[in-house]
């Protein structure tokens, strides 16, 4: 039985289909996500935030997977998953506060934009090193199982991350220990300037699961319903004790790798244009239009609302107080060590008076 066949062997259930009554809500979230992306790139260009890593082109994969999870599941993100946090209940304001690194930022201004952490949503702290979240998701899954919690963990990562040490270690541990983990690879065609085909000669990324003895499936990442179904089934397998699944969601990164990147150096505009024909936002809109759940006027309103909501959050973030000037000494350890207390006192003496105001 190949990996593909194993996955197909999980019997389908009605609950595997994306709930019809949430499609409009999903579209709203998708529009919010896309609008936020556009706005954040502009904010970065204007020097109002320091950095941004866009997710445009990956919204269906992000939303489809996020909707398929249960609240108690744990999410181990990379850096393009802010939509997942929103679906899980993180507020738009807290997301925007992280981008602005202001006093509303739950990560206390310590990380670059896009490196979120939302404890209440079981959305684990993101880091920059590629792939490190993968074995962590496996460990958390093993821990949950040992506590008899009927949950799954999900690790998000890109095509580039499949080359990382941590992918190999995490996948192998998951196979050996049959961890209830969903490996969700967003293959967006590029790892900065390296195209997928130069990343690995594996015919598909999903096929790499064979090497670890569990199923891998390819899914059209522009199809929110297809992604939802794939993740639901992987989740059922996981919770039923049948072990992990690797899902390769095939998407395309429309924008630059990040605001520091100039994609014209390594790919043709025409490639982007043809990928845009499969734009997941447009696709869901078309589906909703033909199902008469949406009309153009309603659509325009959704976009307008999204922009308004974002504007509100941005305005609030810009009005928010900065993080406290000595707050960067906190949380290194559970409590300040004597050495840090001394360093902090020294720094306090140096911090210019104006910065010390709250």
């Amino acid at each position, binding site marked *: 039985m190949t990996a593909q066949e194993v996955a197909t062997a999980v019997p389908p259930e009605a609950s595997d289909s994306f709930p019809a009554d949430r499609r409009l809500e999903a579209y709203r979230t998708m529009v919010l996500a896309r609008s936020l992306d556009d706005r954040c790139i502009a904010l970065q260009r204007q020097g109002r935030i320091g950095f941004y890593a866009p997710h445009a082109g990956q919204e269906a994969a992000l939303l489809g997977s996020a909707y398929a999870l249960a609240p108690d599941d744990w999410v181990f993100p990379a850096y393009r998953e802010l939509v997942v946090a929103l679906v899980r209940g993180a507020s738009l304001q807290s997301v925007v506060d992280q981008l602005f690194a202001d006093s509303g930022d739950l*990560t206390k201004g310590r990380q670059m934009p896009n490196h979120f952490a939302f404890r209440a949503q079981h959305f684990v*702290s993101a880091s920059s090193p590629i792939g490190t979240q993968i074995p962590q998701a496996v460990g958390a899954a093993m821990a949950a199982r040992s506590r008899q919690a009927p949950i799954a963990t999900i690790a998000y990562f890109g095509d580039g991350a499949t080359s990382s040490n941590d992918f190999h270690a995490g996948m192998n*541990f998951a196979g*050996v*220990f049959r961890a209830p983990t969903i490996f969700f690879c967003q293959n967006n065609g590029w790892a900065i300037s390296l195209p997928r085909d130069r990343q690995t000669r594996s015919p598909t990324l999903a096929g790499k699961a064979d090497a670890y003895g569990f199923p891998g499936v390819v899914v059209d990442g522009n199809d929110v319903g297809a992604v939802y179904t794939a993740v639901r089934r992987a989740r059922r397998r996981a919770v039923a004790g049948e072990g992990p699944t690797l899902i390769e969601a095939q998407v395309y990164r429309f924008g630059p790798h990040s605001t520091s990147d100039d994609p014209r150096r390594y790919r043709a505009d025409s490639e982007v244009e043809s990928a845009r024909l499969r734009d997941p936002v447009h696709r869901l809109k078309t589906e909703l239009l033909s199902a008469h759940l949406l009309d153009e006027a309603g659509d325009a309103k959704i976009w307008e609302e999204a922009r308004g909501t974002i504007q509100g959050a941005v305005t609030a973030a810009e009005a928010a107080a900065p993080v406290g000037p000595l707050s960067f000494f906190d949380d290194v350890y559970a409590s300040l060590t004597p050495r840090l207390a001394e360093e902090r006192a020294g720094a306090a003496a140096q911090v210019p008076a104006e910065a010390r105001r709250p």
Partner: protein
Amino acid sequence: MTELTLVQAVNRALFDAMRSDPDVLLLGEDVGVNGGVFRATDGLLKEFGAERVIDTPLSETGIVGAAVGMALYGLKPVAEIQFLDFIYPAFDQIVSELAKMRYRSGGQFPCHVVVRAPYGGGIKGGLYHSQSTEAYFCHTAGLKVVVPSTPADAKGLLLSAIRDEDPVIFLEPKRLYRSATGEVPDGDPAVPLGRARVVREGTDVSLIAYGAMIPPTLEAAATLGTEGVSAEVLDLRTLVPLDEKSVVASVEKTGRAVAVHEAARFCGFGAEIAALLAEKAFYSLKAPIGRVTGYDTPFPYALEQLYLPDAPRIAAAARAAMTAG
């Protein structure tokens, strides 16, 4: 009290910690069925089962990565790295993830993992079964670093490490695993982290050491005693957070200091000791600060006894401090 070897004391600490807290679990290579290549985990699989004593595939990245995930979820994993020399595949997980998780999440995700690893030379292990690279971890904010030198400390400090809220790198002097024996309290002899111990009091020179360097340092102190030199021996026990006060106080008293470790000298832990004293005990210093350390070469095999600091080298450095100036 029971007379135990150092490795037996480690084993007892693991038994005690796992009995008293169901969230404690172990993972590593050969820790289960085999009981650990040094038998530090002997008998644990039998008592606690395969969900809590986990034989892993050959991947330190996986061991520490999974341990981090377990800790995030709320368990208290104790990861074993078979030899400190093999920790580097896990280095990224340790320095980028484990050390920084609490910080980068703004305190939302504490991540308490104990990473145990036998370290050091003296067992004819050559380049890859002898290393002592504690300085890498000491330089990494967010980690605590602990090195016991006696069976009682091994048990007490390991219990404290497991109960601490922060990630701890727990380095076990493998050379002393069987050669160091001593009385170990039976109950719950937690030894607090962050406190050095004066092993021998003295007034002329402070010998500052830890781990497997304690026995030769004591031997040197004894020799010096016969020569009329009163050497104080400090066992640091915890390298991070360092008990700076005790170190400074000792040198304020003696005016002379020699730092001892088996790691290479350049940018080794002894440099931090010297820097600390050159800043905070400067006006008490009567002589240049000595360092007796491994040399700045990889760890050799045939000649390890010449590489490793021994009592004569330590005593010679103390004598140099006595006659300096």
